[in-house]
């Protein structure tokens, strides 16, 4: 049986239980459990998560909200990639 979270763990070597990402229609990205903002620009937003980093590319990006654990990225999101 295909295990989505198991496959994701193999490919990313990330512990998905440590954070949650919700992408709403490529207009809003909601992240829980981030570890800090790394890059902020209108084309790229990058932030750390446990054992890795996530980059969000797009146009007209800005942070709608930033707290200690959560952030909301708003704008025209093109790609979300984890490292």
């Amino acid at each position, binding site marked *: 049986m295909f295990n989505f979270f198991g496959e994701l763990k193999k490919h990313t070597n990330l512990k998905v239980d440590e954070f949650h990402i919700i992408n709403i229609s490529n207009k809003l990205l909601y992240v829980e459990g981030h570890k800090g*903002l790394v890059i*902020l620009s209108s084309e790229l937003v990058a932030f750390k998560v446990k054992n890795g980093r996530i980059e969000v590319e797009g146009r007209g990006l*800005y*942070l*709608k*909200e930033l*707290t*200690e654990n959560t952030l909301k990225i708003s704008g025209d999101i093109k790609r979300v990639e984890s490292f």
Partner: protein
Amino acid sequence: MKNGVQFKIKGLNQEKNLNILAKKFPIYDIVRVSKNCSIFKVKIFHAKKVRKTLIEYNFEILEEKRVGVLPLLLKVFNIYAISALIFCSILIFAQSPFIWQYEILGEKSLTKQEIVDFIKDNFTKNKYKLSTKSVEGALYDEYEEISFVSVIVRGQTLIVNIKEKLLPDEIYGEFKPIISEYDGKVSEIELISGTLAVKTGDYIKAGDVLVYPYYVDDGVEKPVMANAEITLDIYHTSSIMHFEDRVELIRTGEEAEILEVLLFNLPIYINSKSMNFTLYETVVEEQVLIKNNILPLKLKRTTYYELEEVKLHETFEEAKERLVEEAREKALLNSGGCDIIKDEYYTVEENENSVTINYCIVEEVKVGKVDEN
């Protein structure tokens, strides 16, 4: 975020700074304007701490402004609240030297309005110029009823606390004389207070003073309530004249009747028989036919009784008993109803052609007694 404070900051490593801020306060609508410049918003009540943190990390605050409806409302409120506060303060300051309210405590026979009017008429309203001691003295001198008075000013209120003298009823109140309402003779006097104006046996008229409202002490008249129980004999008289030969009118038995129907007291129908009496008396009766205001119809019945003259002869001795009773009834009628009849008698006065009976009823009336309750 609609309401908050917007910061525009300049400095190196913007991300690190935002992370530091985000650990302390939530940050909203973060936009990177340039490499070293970004804009973000925070809640109003976090603004002070955010400013402090930014200064601590050597960030330059290029702009700080309140955004949204709430700050606008707060700004308007502050402007008007401060204006109102200043206006009220000026008003209170302008009015503070004046007395605007009077509070009277402990009055019984005196009235609050009386005392307030006296103070308003005789003293200033400026509380800094008003001497409470002079008010106390003036009140004490003006009103004999006051035995103790204290006056204080509290805020804009002048408080007057008075205690009235406990005066006996005999020397307190309105001093009016006792005046007779009747014509008669004073038969008995029991003086309680005051000075007598009459003595037993005096004949008095209505309006005469019976007791004066004062007593004399070492030649000085001092006011006192006039109080006495005075018994008066009131005389009610009547006269009836008797003639031995006289002419009386008596009914013959013949009568005629006229019926009229009236509307608004105007005759609308008359039913009459022929009547040719030379000497007659009439009796009129009215009867309401319809009891309403729309058609107030009445029936008026007028009866004519024929009379004739008859010569009568009756000696005084034959008529005496009847005449005396008639004279007594007439005297009682003149009195208007007696409560206590003390005595009654009659006299017979003979003239040339007639005899007159004078009847007198002596009524006992008590005047002047004051109800102690």
